């Protein structure tokens, strides 16, 4: 297993109230899998993504990533894990606006301490994978939304991580461009990359071989994408949030 989550809990103190964002989640993801994590807003999927991405530490449970227990690591150790093990693809791209595509893709490699030459070679290779090697010297503002997301994916790939972690990667794109990005993920999955994709869109989750559904910080469904993606719609009564609001 690449990812082993065991009884993961994440509690937040909001005023006097304790919110259980993750309430005992256990999950295993094998190398080479493509898993969607779906759920309504407030279901805990953002917290899940932060925990899997080592941006947040769980308050309870155990998280083993690629054989390393990351659930008790400090900030700097987590930074190293993020740098080596995880390639992030964020919803709003999170590219540095002043830097070129190439410099953006090089960024994680900078923090790995590679030489300028190595950085450049790896970044160019990653941009080739997303077919943007002809836009290397463009700044994000000079690129379309789809191109920006491809730069972001190239950045995630550049560090050759064991996990690609995408947060609503099509959220800010029109449907045609979104489709283009999904195809790119399919391609990457075909090449053997492990992908975890966090989304609230059932249509997107349905495209994934496996989907995990979260609700109120608990796993309520885990199975093939087509089955789990529409789980909500199939049983609307089980989820009061989905019920029409009385006016």
């Amino acid at each position, binding site marked *: 297993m690449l990812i082993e989550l065991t009884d993961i809990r994440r509690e937040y103190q909001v005023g006097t109230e304790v919110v259980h964002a993750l309430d005992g989640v256990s999950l295993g993801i094998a190398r080479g899998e493509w898993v969607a994590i779906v759920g309504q807003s407030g279901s805990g999927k953002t917290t899940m993504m932060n925990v899997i991405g080592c941006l947040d530490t769980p308050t309870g449970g155990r998280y083993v990533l690629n054989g390393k227990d990351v659930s008790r690591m400090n*900030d700097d150790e987590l*930074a190293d894990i993020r*740098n080596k093990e995880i390639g*992030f693809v964020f919803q709003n791209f999170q590219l540095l606006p002043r830097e070129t595509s190439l410099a953006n893709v090089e960024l*994680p490699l900078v*923090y790995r*301490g590679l030489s300028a030459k190595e950085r450049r070679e790896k970044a160019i290779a990653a941009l080739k994978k997303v077919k943007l090697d002809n836009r290397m010297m463009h700044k994000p503002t000079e690129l379309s939304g789809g191109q920006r997301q491809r730069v972001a994916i190239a950045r995630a790939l550049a560090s050759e991580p064991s996990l690609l972690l995408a947060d609503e990667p099509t959220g800010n794109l029109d449907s045609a461009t979104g489709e283009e990005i999904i195809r790119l993920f399919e391609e990457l999955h075909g090449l053997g990359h492990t992908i975890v994709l966090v989304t609230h869109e059932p249509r997107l989750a349905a495209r994934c071989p496996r989907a995990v559904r979260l609700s109120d910080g608990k796993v309520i469904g885990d199975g093939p994408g087509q089955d789990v993606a529409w789980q909500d719609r199939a049983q609307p009564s089980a989820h009061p949030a989905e019920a029409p609001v009385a006016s």
Partner: protein
Amino acid sequence: MIRAFFDNLRLAFGTFVAHPLRTMLTLLGIMIGVSTVMTMMALLEGLRLKVNKDFSQLGANVFRVDKWPQGFRFGGGNRMNWNKIAQRPQLTVDDKRALAEHCPSVSRTGASSWQPAQRVRTGDTETQANVFIIGATVEYPELSGITIARGRMFNDTEEVDGRRVAVLGPDVADKLFPSVDPVGQEIRLKGRPYTVVGVMARRGKIMGMFNMDNQVMIPMTTFFGAYGKRRNVSISVEAKDADSVDKAMEEVIRVMRQRRDVAPTAENNFEISTNESMAKSLNDLSNVVTAATFGVCLLSLIVGGIGILNIMLVSVTERTREIGVRKALGARRLRILAQFATEAVALSVFGGLIGIGIGFGLAFLGRWMLGLYTAVPAWAVLLSVGMSSGVGLVFGIYPAARAARLDPVEAMRSE
């Protein structure tokens, strides 16, 4: 480590290029502070070098006996009691003679007195009312590093008889007799005629201020007749050789105390000063001015540092998202801290370097246009670089620490 430093430096310059105006304005404080330090230090150092040179022009093995302390004194020792000093007896030409007679280690003594701000006339021209008239005994010029360039010094007979003869400073000679040999010509002081017997060699200005060439030297007796008899004089004492200077000083003190009947427990009621002690007192003054200037410059550097603090806080706030992304992609806390600290230090060192350039420029300009004697001491350059980087670090560390502490998730969410 070194690679990270250069990466950070590149990022810092990227920020400067992205905000040139803001960068320049921030630099201004440091620039002004450092250029002030540099200019003032250049002036003071120039002054100091010049003073030491001027004072070493005085005769060898010569010290002076005065009523008043020479120069300025700061700190150390008792505060001067001016009233008490004013009540001291005057020094006289008799004292001068007595010292020559009763001190075996003394070879010669000379006396001088002066009257400032006099006008010197000839039949058809006159100087401004800024000439120093020096009453002198014949030994005085040699004991004070004055040499006669043309003609001669007045002699003993002329001095004792109170003849109206004069030796001109080169500036006075040039002003009154631009085209003829001044020797043998007539000048007028307070309406009375004097015959010019000689012209002094050029000596320049002490500290660039007091012009030693704008003088007229006349016999002491004549001087008393013209400007008042009961005048205090300054006595120059020459020891037989370099080894007997201390001994001569002791003898002079003993003889002076005897002549004045000073009680054994009382302090001297006169002052002994050497070239070194006079130069030292002026150096002390320049040290005080240096320290004061430094304080002022330090204030302006602090103001500059606050500018940097301010702009760095803005920079961190502005780039919260960028910091979040960098941390998410694996930048450690220290790396982010170093990035912003480097930016702050680079900013202020950059300002410091420009300030040093301006300081050199002003020092050069002062020398070239105003004829000031300036010298930029190496320690001032090092100090300026050190202080500006120190200011950058001190005022940059807080914003940098704030950046390093940011939570990546929160930071990326900010707009």
